[in-house]
């Protein structure tokens, strides 16, 4: 019996060694910049379009994982990524204040819109955002929320608050998907409901359906619906392992006029998805 346990023990030890060995043999070492970003920059294809151009300009390979802004900030706080491209200014400022991020630079914007069935059964079309939310709440029609602590979700919550309404968290008509923007639009289309999206992802959705989506833009153009995107480098003092150099290079590159022009040239169905607005002097 003792012999058997001894044997099992040594087998376990050897196998653990082999596991570690193979794991380290598979590990790769290249000059790469790891980014955490929101689903909208990934789903729309913006990063697929920018990454090769960034590599050409600097030789650095950009890799990204797309999650909600909330989780992206968490990944930065945990030192698992080098840079963030996100869109929740209040949460971003808090992130920088707490010492997790540095060099926050605004790079581009688009706007949020409320989309819903073309027939618009509640008649919110043309209202401003506050009235639109009030109507939705009174009529209790299906409203699909991201519910995932993403930038869009944070914005939606702040809009309910600004309209002096309680977030309808537990209401039957309020659906929280916990998933990305395109999924949420698709769910909303399946349920024939209303939802809030950034314009870029909506145009991508329109493009996927060859310009004929079941949901149309009903509320837009309100100042409160501005959607600002920024990049933030993860603070090297908080995380000694992050690649701060390449992160700085990315920030310099994306805020320069050439890359800014690339962003405004990025179009689907002839419509621009993002409007660049980096400040001219990028001297950090």
């Amino acid at each position: 019996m003792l012999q058997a346990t001894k044997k099992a023990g040594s087998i376990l030890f050897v196998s653990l060694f082999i596991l570690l060995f193979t794991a380290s043999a598979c590990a790769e070492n290249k000059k790469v910049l790891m980014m955490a970003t929101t689903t909208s920059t990934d789903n729309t294809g913006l990063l697929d379009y920018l990454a090769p151009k960034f590599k050409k300009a600097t030789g650095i390979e950009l890799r990204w994982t797309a999650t909600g802004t909330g989780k992206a900030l968490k990944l930065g706080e945990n030192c698992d990524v080098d840079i963030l491209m996100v869109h929740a200014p209040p949460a971003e400022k808090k992130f920088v204040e707490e010492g997790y991020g540095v060099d926050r630079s605004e790079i581009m914007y688009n706007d949020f819109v409320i989309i819903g069935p073309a027939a618009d059964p509640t008649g919110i079309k043309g209202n401003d955002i506050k009235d639109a939310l009030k109507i939705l709440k009174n009529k209790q029609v299906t409203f699909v929320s991201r519910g995932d602590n993403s930038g869009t979700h944070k914005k939606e919550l702040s809009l309910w608050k600004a309209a002096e309404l309680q977030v309808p968290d537990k209401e039957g008509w309020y659906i929280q998907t916990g998933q990305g923007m395109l999924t949420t639009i698709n769910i909303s289309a399946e349920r024939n409901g209303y939802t809030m999206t950034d314009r870029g992802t909506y145009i991508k959705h329109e493009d996927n359906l060859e310009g004929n989506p079941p949901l149309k833009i009903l509320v837009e153009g309100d100042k409160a619906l501005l959607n600002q995107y920024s990049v933030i480098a993860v603070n090297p003092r908080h995380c000694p392992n992050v690649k701060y150099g390449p992160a700085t290079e990315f920030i310099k590159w994306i805020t320069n006029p050439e890359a800014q022009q690339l962003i405004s040239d990025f179009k689907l169905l002839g419509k621009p998805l993002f409007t660049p607005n980096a400040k001219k002097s990028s001297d950090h």
Partner: protein
Amino acid sequence: MEFILEGFFQAIHLLITGNAETYSAITATIKVSSCSMGCSLIMGIPLGFCLGYFEFKGKKSIRTIVDTLMALPTVFIGLLVYAFLTHRGPFGDFGLLFTLPGIAIGQAILALPIVIGLSATAVESMDKKLRTTIMSMGANRRQLFLSSLWESRHGILAGAIAAYGRVMTEVGISMMVGGNIKWHTRTITTAIALETNKGQFGMGIALGIVLLTLALFVNISVSFLRRRF
């Protein structure tokens, strides 16, 4: 409805034209599943064999634990591996998060209990008379050990195939530990999840068909091996 048919044609088209994205996902899947299956077989078969072969105190409780672990949910493994590999976790300095080896570790944890459990069952369910027969032919302990291992090979192989099936098809670990990074850690299953999220059902179905083809290929080669030995 037409997108199902469309997906089928798209699958053929993607495979024949050598679509770079599709092949990158296929290579990532094959690489990571071979890595994890290699690890779990090297560790699992000896452990499973010992568990089935030797009699010792506490054997039954170990069996129960192993059988329970066979039902480990992939998202839970993903969460655990993430917690250990993040830079704030104990193994953060290896830099394995968002890499294929990171996924392979998670998948090895997924496959290990299946390999151990089914190997142990294969050894246990061997004919008891076999042992006495081999002994009566004058075999020493080492020869007895090896011939028992050889006689249980089909059961162990079945366990390996079952484990391989789970590793190939899991999405939770690849998504959480790998981060679904294009050209690097995007496997077939995470690509399907992404395409479905984007509403590109045709592409998702195409990748699903690719995955099934791979599984078919593996099973054909295994049954070929089985016939020869």
